[in-house]
């Protein structure tokens, strides 16, 4: 039996974010919200561990303007209950603030053996939350997990490294940060959706967590986010085939697209 905490982040659906045609800034307000893809992998892995070894899966989510529907979706996938902190102060939360808030919330939940989170988030890709949580709790953490097995009271993990797989083992409690390759998150069936409406979502106020001003102040300030402007050059070449090939090759080299 293992009790697992899964950290979920509500992000904008980046596939549906369009840059402003003039400022090129992402129009986040217009994009629908979703649970970060990596976090759904974390939830799926937690559910698979629970199905094999028993225990319970508790989803936690901290952020600003969190939509209950998304949390219900996690419950429909199979989480047993959820804890949510939704507060305007968390709108600009960076990895530090997010990890401090999550840790304070997790401390309120009681006994757990394993924390699972996505290795990064869909919107900011900072790769911070998992390692920071492990530091706060002073427990082992394993990142880039592509496979995980509970074994002899600990967890054995296959880590994706450049050019190979690194197999490591850690004692519990531990933090595991998973990548997209680890599994395919399940779709909740209609019966699971129906069952989710009866599962508890605990709303916790940020003020109840006893966090200091320092813990709630982001360490990183985002100065600017802009889309890359892609424009066609519309270069027209004229001449005989040999001459054209020569000219094209020169342009490709000149633009750095092909190395000499």
């Amino acid at each position, binding site marked *: 039996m293992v009790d697992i905490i899964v950290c979920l982040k509500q992000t904008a659906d980046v596939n549906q974010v369009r840059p402003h045609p003039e400022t090129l800034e992402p129009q986040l307000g217009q994009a629908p919200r979703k649970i970060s893809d990596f976090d759904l992998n974390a939830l799926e892995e937690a559910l698979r561990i629970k199905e094999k070894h028993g225990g319970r899966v508790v989803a936690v989510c901290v952020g600003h303007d969190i939509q*209950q*529907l998304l949390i*219900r*979706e996690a419950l*429909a996938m199979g989480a047993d209950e959820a804890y949510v902190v939704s507060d305007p102060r968390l709108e600009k939360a960076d990895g530090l603030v997010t990890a401090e808030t999550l840790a304070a919330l997790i401390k309120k939940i009681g006994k757990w053996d394993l924390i699972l989170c996505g290795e990064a988030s869909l919107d900011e890709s900072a790769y911070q939350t998992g390692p920071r949580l492990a530091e706060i709790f002073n427990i082992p953490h394993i990142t880039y997990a592509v496979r995980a097995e509970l074994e002899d009271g600990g967890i054995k993990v296959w880590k994706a490294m450049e050019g190979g797989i690194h197999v490591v083992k850690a004692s519990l409690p531990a933090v595991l940060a998973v990548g997209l390759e680890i599994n395919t998150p399940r*779709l*909740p*069936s*209609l*019966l*699971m*959706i*129906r069952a*989710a*409406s009866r599962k508890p979502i605990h709303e916790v106020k940020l003020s109840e967590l006893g966090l200091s001003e320092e813990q709630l102040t982001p360490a990183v300030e985002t100065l600017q986010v802009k889309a890359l402007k892609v424009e066609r050059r519309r270069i027209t070449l004229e001449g005989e085939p040999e001459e054209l090939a020569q000219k094209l090759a020169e342009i490709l080299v000149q633009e750095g697209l092909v190395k000499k």
Partner: protein
Amino acid sequence: MNFSEDEDVQLLRRTIAEFMKGFPAEYWRRHDSLREFPRDFWDAAARNGLLGITIPEEYGGAGLGMYAAAVAMNEVARNGGGLAAGDLLMRTLVFGGLLINKHASREAKEKYLPKLAEGKIICAFAHTEPNAGVNTFDIQTKAVKKDGGFVVNGQKIWITLAHMADLIIGVVRTTPKDKVQRKSHGISLLLIDAKQPGVKTSRIPGMALRALPSNQVYFEDVWVPEENVVGEVDRGWETLTVLLNAERISTASISLGCGEYALQRAVEYASNRLVFGRPIGSNQAIQFPLAEAKAELEVAKLMTLKAAWLHDQGLDCAVEANIAALQAARAAFKAADRAVQTFGGMGFAEENDIERVFRDVRLFRTAPVPEEMVLNFIATRALGLPRSF
């Protein structure tokens, strides 16, 4: 008034949108082209509970109503499944689930509902006949009482999927028209085991819904036990009208889904296709018809969901369901037509899926009931004008 949807229904929408990513346009194109039953979709829909939306929990379903069913049919269609995906849900959720659950005997519910929810039964609705057209009172398929059941003889036409069906919901005469006081009397609804040797089918290759072919059906001394009568013997007309209202809401929801899909594809194309150095969508000649299509689809959607809501409250929804079916089919046809025009020559290429949607959305302007008959109904029932027939 309150337009907010239940959390269950919102989750259903999101889940179906994700679910349909497993069945992209190529999947539906291939099955349409080969006229092949979309078996993988059917099995996956069953596994995910989509075939049990209207079936009570005690029989393995979710116990939701017409509103949720309408949403599901709309979502599978608008996420690329089009008419074929929508129709597959309709036959199980409405012809099967709603009808059997509301009007059939306990034996029939126990026998059919769990299998319907699991996708183990395909059902077909056999109403129209070659010699009756849209006039149900003139149907000639008859069922004669014998030894605790009925013996059915007759023929039906335009019966989708009858060649694969396990169960046919048949509309039959149990008392001849000349022996009843009112012409609506003497009609019954039967649950017919379609695997009997006396049930014969012959396919009619057609323009629309090619993955789910239509059929002529012949009943030759087909046996139906008494417990398979839906509602009361000879009083099937009352049950049939309730079913037909649910069918109108379903066709409206599917039409809307197809129209929304066509519109979305047209908008994408208009935004990306450059002619004279700018996207064709920046031309008002392209924009305005697409904007009109959007407006008309949205208005039709309001009426469709209102009809579904009335249905779930047990209130009369006949006028609303008919208006919804009429307007949704027209709006979808217009959206698909504008999509073809926006795509230009590419709209005719099978690989772009627009021509398939165009062929498919034409169906619900003619079937299951032609829009002229819907207008007749609105004129007489909602406006109180005298009948023309």
